[in-house]
């Protein structure tokens, strides 16, 4: 039994990856062992420090989904405006897309048949 998956040009072997992953993990472990040993849980050491300011409540300081990737959406604003337009949520439109797609593909198939 072989682990190698041939993909035409190249091959893929998960075992190699797993071994590499384990080696990297060992290296990481060694780095970690060289770190501070004085750190202790459940003391003031584990508290969040925010330049001496008051730390907000747990609910406040969690970054919610609406704020993640703000720049990405800001850059692609035009694209999203366009792409959201067909997503109307009206069931009639859904059927209209079906009709249009059927008509277009029938035309394509017929024209391709004529060209032959």
């Amino acid at each position: 039994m072989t682990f190698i998956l041939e993909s035409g040009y190249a091959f893929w072997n998960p075992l190699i990856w797993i071994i590499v992953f384990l080696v990297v993990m060992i290296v990481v472990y060694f780095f970690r062992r060289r770190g501070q040993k004085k750190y202790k849980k459940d003391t003031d050491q584990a508290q969040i420090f925010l330049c001496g300011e008051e730390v907000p409540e747990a609910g406040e300081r969690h970054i919610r989904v609406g704020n993640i990737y703000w720049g990405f959406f800001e850059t692609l604003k035009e694209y999203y405006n366009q792409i959201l337009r067909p997503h109307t949520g009206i069931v009639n439109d859904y059927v209209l897309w079906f009709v249009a797609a059927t008509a277009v593909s029938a035309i394509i198939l017929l024209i391709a048949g004529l060209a032959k």
Partner: protein
Amino acid sequence: MEYIPLNFPFLAAALLAGISFYIIIFRKNLIKLIMGVGMMSSGVNLFLVALGYRAGGNVPIYTDVPEGPMVLSVPQALTLTSIVINVAVLALMLSMVINVYRHTGSLDSEKSRKMKG
């Protein structure tokens, strides 16, 4: 029966399906939409049963049948199946519309929608 030019029964079936597409696309009332689906199923059933007709044919049932050819029997069986299926679909659709109306108080496909995007 004489030869019918232009396949009128088939045309009727296709037009029935076409008209029901118009209803489904352009009518916003959900009950009308269901009626459109019902009409489309009638069109398809008509098409199927018309496929099996043979000019001057008898019913394909041997009980006291006169002499002569018989019309094709498979399309009739298919139509029978298809009719029952469509009854089932329509019943389920109607009960869903009842629930949609109960929740949103509207039968308009634009006003009763909650989800988009």
